[in-house]
């Protein structure tokens, strides 16, 4: 029941935003900014670049909104976010010096969202896990990385990922398979980096 009214609210907000209502669009941003930023952060592994990509994605979305022809707003927005991420990756590739500078600073100073009732130890463990996984993700080609982030971390469906990245379902399947396999190999290699709780992995 709640999700139905939520969806109706979203439809009304999208309709209002299409008419140029920035307040309505800002409400949509409030709903999706954490998701958008997380996708961007996991893809780019750089808080500043992720923030830039997220902001750019929302500005692009607001401008492109009159061209939005119904369907899932979330999937439509996700496509714009992934495109903004690819743009950031291309910019980073063009300026390798600046990304090297970023590497010198610990990029994992990002504040994690806390679960209710989570102990400080658990929080620290999760942060360690996030760091290790992130390093593993960094080794993947961007397409495989994005597929793994969207499916395993963000919980999108195959269908939604196909729509957001503009490829077929089969391509999503194979990207995800290869990305996960590579990540599995990486984690087996770098087991000692993982928190003890997560350590026994495979073989």
């Amino acid at each position, binding site marked *: 029941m709640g999700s139905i009214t939520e969806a109706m609210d979203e439809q009304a907000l999208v309709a209002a935003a299409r008419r140029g209502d920035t307040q309505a669009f800002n409400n949509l941003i409030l709903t999706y900014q954490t998701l958008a930023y997380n996708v961007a952060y996991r893809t780019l592994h750089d808080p500043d670049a992720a923030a830039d990509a997220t902001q750019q994605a929302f500005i692009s979305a607001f401008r492109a909104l009159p061209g939005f022809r119904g369907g899932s707003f979330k999937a439509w927005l996700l496509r714009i976010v992934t495109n903004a991420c690819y743009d950031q990756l291309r910019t980073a590739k063009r300026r390798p010096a600046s990304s090297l500078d970023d590497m010198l600073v610990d990029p994992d100073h990002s504040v994690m969202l806390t679960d209710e009732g989570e102990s400080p130890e658990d929080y620290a463990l999760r942060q360690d896990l996030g760091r290790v996984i992130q390093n593993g993700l960094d080794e993947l080609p961007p397409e495989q990385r994005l597929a793994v982030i969207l499916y395993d971390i963000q919980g999108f469906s195959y269908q939604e990922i196909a729509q957001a990245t503009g490829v077929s379902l089969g391509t999503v399947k194979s990207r995800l398979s290869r990305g996960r*396999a590579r990540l599995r190999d990486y984690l087996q290699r770098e087991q000692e980096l993982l928190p003890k709780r997560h350590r026994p992995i495979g073989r």
Partner: protein
Amino acid sequence: MFDLMKRWAKTEHELCQENLSAFLDGQVTHRERMRVQKHLEECAACRADLEALRHTVALLRAVPAVKPPRSFLLPAREVIQQRQAQRRRLAYVYMQAATAVATVLLVLVVSGDAILRYLPSPAARISEIRPAATAVLMEPEAVLETEGALAPVPAPQEAPAERLGAGETMEITAAPQQSPEAPTTEAPAESLDATTVEQTKTTQLVVEKQVGEPKAMPSETFASSAAPPAPPTPAAEAEPIGPSPTAEAMAAAAPTATPLPAPTDTPVPPTATPLPVPTNTPVPPTATPSPTSTAVPSVPSEQLPSPPPASGLWAFLEVLGPFLPWIELTLALTVALLLAVTLWLRRRQRLV
């Protein structure tokens, strides 16, 4: 046999490896699922891989979400820009419409003006004719000359043109252009009768007026060539000076010039001098000098002896008449201005 079995088993193993990820997500067909499950029972390596994969996925699911460092609500700058862009779009549409309206208005006024000039109101015709007639009365012999001269124009014109071709090639091109126009002046002249003498007088008046200016040049050529039927030469030479109506008049005026050669030794002929003065005076009341004079030859066909009752539209146009050029100019400037602003707006819109 074993070799074949091994190869088959290997492909089965590869298939299983390929499908492990989708198998884990339940994204395989029923047949694929059966094959993978069957292979997993036989292959320990695949079982281990599946477990490792399951563990990896579990770790990925446990990856914490990060908190956005700031809010990504559209900045005020973006909101303002968006509103400005919208306002510009609206302004562009309005300016486009305004330009279209002004252009249509300009076309209407210009075409209306043109129609008004070529079909003058009866009242305007009378006012034109009256002063013209009085002016011509001062030179009665000129009328007689024209009446006699108008008819024979085309005949002598063609012959001398050919003759001149030998000596002066410049005039050849001018002469043939002249000949087709000559009959048009001839037609009204022939249709003249006793009642329409006044019209002939005005025609004569126009003719004399135009002759007055270029006469100095032709007279010199007369003197050098000394040939008797010279008339076409001044007509041909006068052609580039004035527009087609002028040339037309020149063709008609050509014979009028023939008796003049004798006194043309003096630069300005005495008969020509008094004429420009009276022609100028009757014209001002009509406000538009050149078109009204060209319209005169067409008058005889629909001439009305008594002034008809002026309709409201005609009266309105009469009043508007003198201001029409100004209205046109203002409209043209408005169109130009609107077009410039519209183009500027479009350019700005593209830049944003």
